[in-house]
């Protein structure tokens, strides 16, 4: 035990000064974390919002950054006149579907079928000239980089990547 004046005290000024410096750096890091969180680096926010696809066929809006067991949403917009015989069919890779807990699809697909490493979602539409918007909500189940693919049946393939935080 050290002696400080008349006190037996474990005071350590060298350590204390070092600690003050580390704490200042830590406070700056905390501010950066809050700003990054506001910008969406850890989940929803402007830096996280991303989309893939093209306006002629299908656009998927997704989040670059998601959190394990947090809330995730994939919004698929299918361009008008892509329905064949009143059916819009798009697929998602089973690799991506294996990394999420699907919570709901709105509107609900009229048919879901499997085709190799893809799952095809079929929607019956009354008016093929109207665009179709489908919202898929899920809990991310994977950790780290999660790859997904989406596209219209007989259309081009689009791939996207998400980072899933623990």
């Amino acid at each position, binding site marked *: 035990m050290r002696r*400080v*004046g*008349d*006190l037996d*005290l*474990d*005071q*350590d000024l060298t*350590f*204390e000064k070092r*600690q*003050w410096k*580390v*704490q200042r750096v*830590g*406070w700056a*890091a*905390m501010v950066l974390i809050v700003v990054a969180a506001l910008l969406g680096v850890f989940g929803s926010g402007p830096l996280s919002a991303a989309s893939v696809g093209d306006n002629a066929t299908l656009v998927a809006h997704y989040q670059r950054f998601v959190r394990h*067991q947090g809330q995730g949403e994939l919004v698929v917009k299918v361009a008008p006149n892509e329905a064949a015989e009143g059916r819009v069919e798009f697929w998602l890779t089973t690799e991506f579907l294996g990394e999420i807990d699907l919570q709901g699809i709105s509107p609900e697909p009229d048919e879901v079928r499997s085709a190799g490493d893809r799952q095809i979602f079929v929607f019956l539409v009354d008016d093929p000239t109207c665009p179709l918007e489908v919202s898929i909500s899920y809990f991310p189940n994977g950790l780290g980089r999660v790859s997904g693919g989406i596209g219209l049946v007989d259309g081009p393939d689009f791939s996207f990547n998400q980072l899933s935080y*623990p």
Partner: protein
Amino acid sequence: MDAVLRASAIYLVLLLIFRITGKRSLAQITTFDFVLLLVIGEATQQALLGNDFSVINAAIVIVTLLTIDVGLSLAQARFPRLGPWLDDVPLVLVEDGQMLQRRMDKSRISEADILQAAWATQGLERMDQIKYAVLERTGEVSIIPKQES
């Protein structure tokens, strides 16, 4: 496995955050500090338990937290240099009635905080009656009064 990893991660994150925010952050100085601690508890609860509300899961989480706690205290006993990093060190703020202003500023302790501790714990009335004021590891201010002559 999940529960142990969750509990360990939360323990480390909390330890890091509270060591960075300094001695005063854990001291329940105002009612609001107390409320803040409760809210932090609420925020960590979900991450600790996940979606599993079973008794076993709660038991595993508690045992893991306490095991790490005991483990770290044993490590401190074995490696004394770990102590300051994990538990902080005390700091003298007032010596013979003289405030050490730089230390007080760096520790975010005001004159009023010291005087409050002085009259609450020792019934002292003025700064010059204080021989030592020490900011403890816990964030509390201990007062040692000058001897009456």
